[in-house]
Structure formats: structure tokens, C-alpha cells
């Protein structure tokens, strides 16, 4: 089995290659079909792993040595353990569903071939990132998905805002990419290896506190930038400029989870730095709360979901931070399902409302689109973690409850719980505004094909049912997940007995409180007095604006200075221009000598003779 692992990222890569080379001949329709087939093939291979040997012990497939210079050795090794298996299942299967959805969604759009090329390349990059056993290979995948994200956000590049959003995402994530690379360098400088499986035991065996602190902070910044955590979250709401399918795949289900995944993979590293995990937990909980509060005031359907993604990712980081990485991973899985569902559904909603994103203009959609309504509602249930019947109830609430148990978990618990209230609030506010109320006149006729319905149905089923893999402790029912991952990630703290029951109850109460909040908010919104009038919340606590005002400005100023001073005056003016003008001037002077006068030529000959005569002095007899 192991020797076939390369096929998993290989298929989408092949698809991208074929698309790039022969896409012109295939035509957009076949480009799309080809592109959709590739992740399906990948997910079939993943399925084969599930059904076959499983990933216990971890599967290793060393393809070849990429480069080897001294002790700098990069083996192209793919590694699949249980955690990875979850990730590649999400990436390939959700990726396939989104490819499928795109067939109808993007039909007739400009740049279809480009879209499918980048989508395939993205899936390949994501799979490489997750399967890499080597930090450099991981970084390769990391950069690939960053590039594809940039290209896909700017997919409708003819709109200046879209191109700007793509640039913003790229620049912000680049900061993280750079720090990640620096962190990798630091680790290599200390431990002379880039292989994760050999690095982590070394870290615990020979800790180097200062260096590990620096490296883990640098790597964490990389993860935060990729996963849009506070304060690097500013790119994600703007990235909603891309097609909804892209938001579903990249900015909800897969790429943004790469940061969480990185933290889980390098948990040994973070654990070796005292206080690091606690900081991650607090920051995660804070992000969850903060983004949820912002989501409550958005009027763009996709921006609501964007803030929700930031918030949910915060929960995942919180899970990692409190020492419950398996719960974090569980929530990652659940979130991938329901967020992909919500984004695709919102894409459909936007199409129905003729490209209007504003939820205040919507309403009563449940009468015209019952299928869409029920699937969307399933997603909203999952997001709001409605007790018992939604998956997130079993993942997110588990994280919040677990945080109550760990030492120093008070702050994360409080933030997480209030975040949960707000989450249910914005989720139901969105649902009430769009689907309830009286029908809006704006909606146009729109018929979803099977290509769109099947993915939605599958994801809706998963959003409801996948949580039943892992019931709360002490409850009857399966407890598969945590125990399955325990060999790799350990057992999370789990409240039992009365304490557990109380915590579960509090969580459920929070959800219902949130639903009430959402109903209230939706009503006020309809009346025109909604939370969206609160600039503070709507603008995301003014953080975006502040950062944009604070950081780029000095860079621009520096850039202007460099352009004016160094580039124009120095390089262009003195070096290049001076050189050019100097050459031109001397050439001109020389050409003046070539004036056709034979006697002038004779003069230059005699001058040369004089020069040679003077040289005689240099060599005395």
C-alpha cells in the first residue's frame, strides 16, 4: 500500500498538469470533468487506506531524495498516520464534492480552465502539505496552497476589489510563510534535520529553551496567518471576493485548517516550550469570541460565514492549546463538513439573488427553495451546535467543556462559552434573515442541478451525523474518535458525572440563548435597527482599518523613499543612468574622432605611439 501513497497528491497534480498543457483542446466542460475526477481518484485511494491497512502504524513512502548537501538532506517522504488520514480524507473528499458543485456553479464563467487548474493544484498542494514528513516539503505544499488561494481569490480579477483582496490575502499570509520558513531554519540550525518524525524526539531529548521559544513563536505566527487567527485574520473576510466554492474549499474546509494541522503535527515542539500551549488556548478562545461578535453584525452573507470560520478555527486552536488535540481535530472535521455546506449553499443563495450579497435584501427563501433551506438549516444547526442533533455539539462543546477542567482554563472557558452564545446568535440571525420572513422580490428563478444537490445533501448528512462518532463521556453510544486517536494524540481531559452533565447543560443553554439572540437580532435587522449599524462590530472592532493604517503606511513611505532616493537617484540615476550617459558621452566623444579626417587618424596613431613611448619608462633596462 505504501508505495501507492504518492498517487494521492499525484492525481490532482496530474490533473493540473494536463489542464495546463492541453486544457485549450479539452474545452472548459471537459477541463471541469477532468479536474473533478482527479480528487475523486485521490479519495478512492484514501478510502482504500481506510478499508485496507489503516494508518496504524504510520505509513511511510520515501519517493526519492530531493537534495542532499552535507547534513542538509531533504527526502521526499510521504507519511500517513491517523491524523493525516483525517486531513487527507477531508481534503480529497470535500475537495471532490466542491469540484462537483463547481461544474454547474461556474458554468459559463470566464477563466474556467484557469479555475480548475488552480483548484486541482490546490488540492495537490494541500495533500502534499498534510502528507509531508519533511518540513521543507511541507513548506512547499504550504506555499502552493498560498499561491492557489491568491489566484483563486482574484479569480474575477477584472474587478479591482477582487484583485486587491487577493493581494491582501497573499501579503498577510506571506508574512506568516516567511516566519514559518525562519522557524524551520532555526530548527534545522539546531537539530540538523528537517524530518518531522526525527525532529520531535530530538526536541524533547535536547531542549534548547531560547531557540525553541523563538522557533515556536515564528512557526505559530505562520500557522496563525494561514489560519486567519487574531490579529492575522484580516485577510479572510476580504477573501470572500472569490467564488463561493473557493471559499468553501480553501477558506473553510482545508487551507485555513493547515495552521491547526501544523500545530497538531508539531505539538511536541510547542509542548516543549513552557506556557506556549496555554497562550495558544487563550488566543484561540479570544479569536473565537472576537470573530463571533463580529459575525453578528455583518450584512454580507459570505462575510458572516468568514467571521464564523475565524471563530471556529479559534475553537480548534483552543482545543489544541488545552491539550485536547483530538477534539480539535474532531472539530476540524465537523467544521469542514458544515462550513463547506454553508459556503456552497450561500453561493447558491447569491446566485438566486442575482449576485446580491446583502442579507437585509433577502427573506422567505424557504418557500421557493425548500431543499436549499433544509440543507442550509442543517449547516446552521451544526454551526450553532444545537444539542444532540448537530455534529458541533459533540465537538465544539466538548472542547469548551474540556477547557473547564484544565488548570488555568477559566479564561478560555468563559471566552469560549460566550463565543458559543454569539455563534448561535449570528448563525440563526443569518438563517432567519434569509429563509424566514416574507419573500423578497429580488430573487430570480434558479434551479439547482443534481451536481449541486448531491454535495449539499451529503454534507448536510455529515453535518448532522458525524458527531455521533464521539458521544460525550458517560453517555451511551459510540466513543470511537478519541480512543482511535489516543495512541497519537493522547486522551483529552473529559468531564464526567455530574460535572460533565452540568457543563453539557450550560453549553446547551448557551446555544438556546444564542438562538434567541439571533431571532432578536434578525427582527431588529428587518426593522432597520440591527446590529449592523454598530460600526464597531461591523468593521470587526476596527482592527482591519487600524492595521491597514498602521502597517502598510510606513512600508509605503519606506518604499517611496527607496524608490525616490535609492532607486531613482541611486540605481537609476547614478549607477544605471550615470553609466549609460557616461558610456554614451564617451562614445560620442570617440565618435567625434571618427570624423573622416585622415590627419586626425594620424594624430591618434602618434598619440598611441607616445603612449607606448611612455610605457618604456615602466620597464627600465
Amino acid at each position, binding site marked *: 500500500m505504501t508505495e501507492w501513497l504518492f498517487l494521492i497528491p499525484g492525481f490532482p497534480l496530474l490533473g493540473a498538469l494536463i489542464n495546463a498543457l492541453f486544457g485549450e483542446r479539452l474545452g472548459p466542460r471537459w477541463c471541469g470533468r477532468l479536474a473533478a475526477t482527479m480528487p475523486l481518484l485521490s479519495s478512492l485511494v484514501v478510502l482504500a487506506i481506510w478499508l485496507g491497512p489503516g494508518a496504524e502504524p504510520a505509513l511511510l513512502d520515501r519517493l526519492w531524495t530531493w537534495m542532499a548537501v552535507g547534513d542538509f538532506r531533504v527526502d521526499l517522504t510521504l507519511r500517513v498516520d491517523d491524523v493525516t488520514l483525517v486531513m487527507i480524507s477531508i481534503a480529497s473528499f470535500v475537495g471532490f464534492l466542491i469540484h462537483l458543485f463547481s461544474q454547474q456553479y461556474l458554468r459559463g464563467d470566464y477563466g474556467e480552465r484557469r479555475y480548475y487548474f488552480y483548484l486541482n493544484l490546490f488540492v495537490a498542494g494541500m495533500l502534499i502539505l498534510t502528507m509531508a514528513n519533511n518540513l521543507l516539503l511541507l513548506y512547499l505544499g504550504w506555499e502552493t496552497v498560498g499561491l492557489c488561494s491568491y489566484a483563486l481569490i482574484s479569480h474575477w480579477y477584472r474587478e479591482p476589489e477582487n484583485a486587491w483582496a487577493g493581494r491582501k490575502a497573499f501579503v498577510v499570509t506571506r508574512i506568516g510563510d516567511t516566519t514559518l520558513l525562519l522557524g524551520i531554519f532555526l530548527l534545522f540550525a539546531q537539530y540538523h534535520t528537517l524530518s518531522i518524525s526525527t525532529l520531535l524526539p530530538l526536541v524533547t531529548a535536547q531542549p534548547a529553551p531560547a531557540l525553541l521559544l523563538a522557533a515556536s513563536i515564528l512557526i505559530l505566527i505562520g500557522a496563525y496567518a494561514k489560519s486567519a487567527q487574531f490579529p492575522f485574520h484580516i485577510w479572510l473576510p476580504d477573501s470572500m471576493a472569490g467564488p463561493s466554492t473557493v471559499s468553501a474549499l480553501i477558506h473553510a474546509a482545508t487551507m485555513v485548517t493547515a495552521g491547526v494541522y501544523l500545530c497538531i503535527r508539531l505539538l511536541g515542539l510547542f509542548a516543549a516550550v513552557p506556557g506556549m500551549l496555554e497562550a495558544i488556548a487563550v488566543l484561540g478562545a479570544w479569536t473565537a469570541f472576537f470573530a463571533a461578535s463580529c459575525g453578528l453584525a455583518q450584512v454580507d452573507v459570505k462575510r458572516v460565514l468568514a467571521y464564523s470560520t475565524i471563530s471556529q478555527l479559534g475553537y480548534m486552536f483552543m482545543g489544541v492549546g488545552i491539550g485536547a488535540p483530538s477534539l480539535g481535530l474532531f472539530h476540524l472535521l465537523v467544521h469542514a463538513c458544515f462550513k463547506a455546506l454553508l459556503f456552497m449553499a450561500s453561493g447558491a443563495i447569491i446566485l438566486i439573488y442575482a449576485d446580491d450579497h446583502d442579507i437585509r435584501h433577502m427573506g422567505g427563501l424557504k418557500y421557493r427553495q425548500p431543499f436549499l433551506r433544509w440543507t442550509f438549516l442543517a449547516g446552521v444547526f451544526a454551526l450553532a451546535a444545537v444539542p444532540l442533533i448537530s455534529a458541533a455539539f459533540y465537538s465544539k462543546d466538548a472542547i469548551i467543556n474540556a477547557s473547564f477542567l484544565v488548570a488555568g482554563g477559566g479564561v478560555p472557558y468563559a471566552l469560549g462559552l460566550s463565543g458559543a452564545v454569539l455563534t448561535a446568535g449570528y448563525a440563526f440571525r443569518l438563517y432567519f434573515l434569509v429563509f424566514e420572513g416574507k419573500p423578497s422580490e429580488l430573487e430570480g428563478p434558479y434551479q439547482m442541478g443534481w451536481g449541486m444537490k448531491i454535495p449539499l445533501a451529503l454534507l448536510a448528512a455529515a453535518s448532522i451525523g458525524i458527531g455521533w462518532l464521539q458521544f460525550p463521556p458517560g453517555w451511551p453510544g459510540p466513543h470511537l474518535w478519541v480512543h482511535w486517536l489516543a495512541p497519537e494524540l493522547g486522551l483529552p481531559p473529559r468531564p464526567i458525572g455530574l460535572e460533565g452533565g452540568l457543563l453539557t447543560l450550560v453549553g446547551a443553554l448557551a446555544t438556546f440563548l444564542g438562538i434567541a439572540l439571533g431571532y432578536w437580532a434578525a427582527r431588529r435587522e428587518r426593522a432597520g435597527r440591527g446590529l449592523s449599524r454598530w460600526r464597531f462590530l461591523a468593521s470587526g472592532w476596527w482592527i482591519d482599518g487600524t492595521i491597514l493604517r498602521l502597517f502598510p503606511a510606513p512600508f509605503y513611505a519606506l518604499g517611496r523613499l527607496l524608490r525616490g532616493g535609492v532607486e531613482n537617484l541611486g540605481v537609476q540615476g547614478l549607477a544605471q543612468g550615470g553609466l549609460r550617459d557616461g558610456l554614451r558621452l564617451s562614445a560620442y566623444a570617440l*565618435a*567625434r574622432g*571618427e*570624423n*573622416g*579626417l*585622415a*590627419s586626425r587618424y*594620424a*594624430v591618434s596613431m*602618434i598619440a598611441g605611439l607616445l603612449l607606448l613611448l611612455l610605457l618604456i619608462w615602466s620597464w627600465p633596462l
Partner: protein
Amino acid sequence: MIEIALAAAALLFFVGLALILLRRSLVFWLLGAELLFNAALLVALAGGARWHAISGQVLALFIMALSGAALAPSLALLLRVRRELGTLNVDGLRLLREREKQDD
């Protein structure tokens, strides 16, 4: 005596060069070249006298013959230049030269 011959050669050399560098007429240019050749003759003969060898005279004879040989086609060219270009002025030969660039 050799010193005087060499001084005479230097004199011939400089006047020959001066004719080439300063005079306007092509005839004087060629005369100047002849003076230079004569300077070479003097030096060659001075060398022969210095080393008591006949090879100096042999060299001088060859130089004499070759300078004469070079003069004949030069004068033929001079005549054609006078006929066809209508000038004997060294500054008049200006069909071929670096033109000022127009596109600068």
C-alpha cells in the same frame, strides 16, 4: 658620427611627422612619409656602422626599394583622387565618416 646620423634621423623623423600631422596637402603627406623612410635608412646605416656589418646596408637597400614601391600606387591614387574627388586637401576626404546619429 653615428650620433650625428641618429640626430639627423631624429630630425627627419620629426619633420616627416610634422608634414603628416600639420600640412594640408596630400603631396606633403607623402613627402613626409618619404622623410620617415629616410630616417629609417639613416638608422639602418648607423646600425651597420655600429656593428661593422653589411646587413645594415642590406636592410637600407630593402627599405629604399620598398618605400619606392609603396610610393608608386600612392601617387597613382593621388592622381585619381585629384581627378575624381577634385581635391588634394587631406581634410577634403570626408565621404566616409561617422555620421551624427539622427534618432538620438
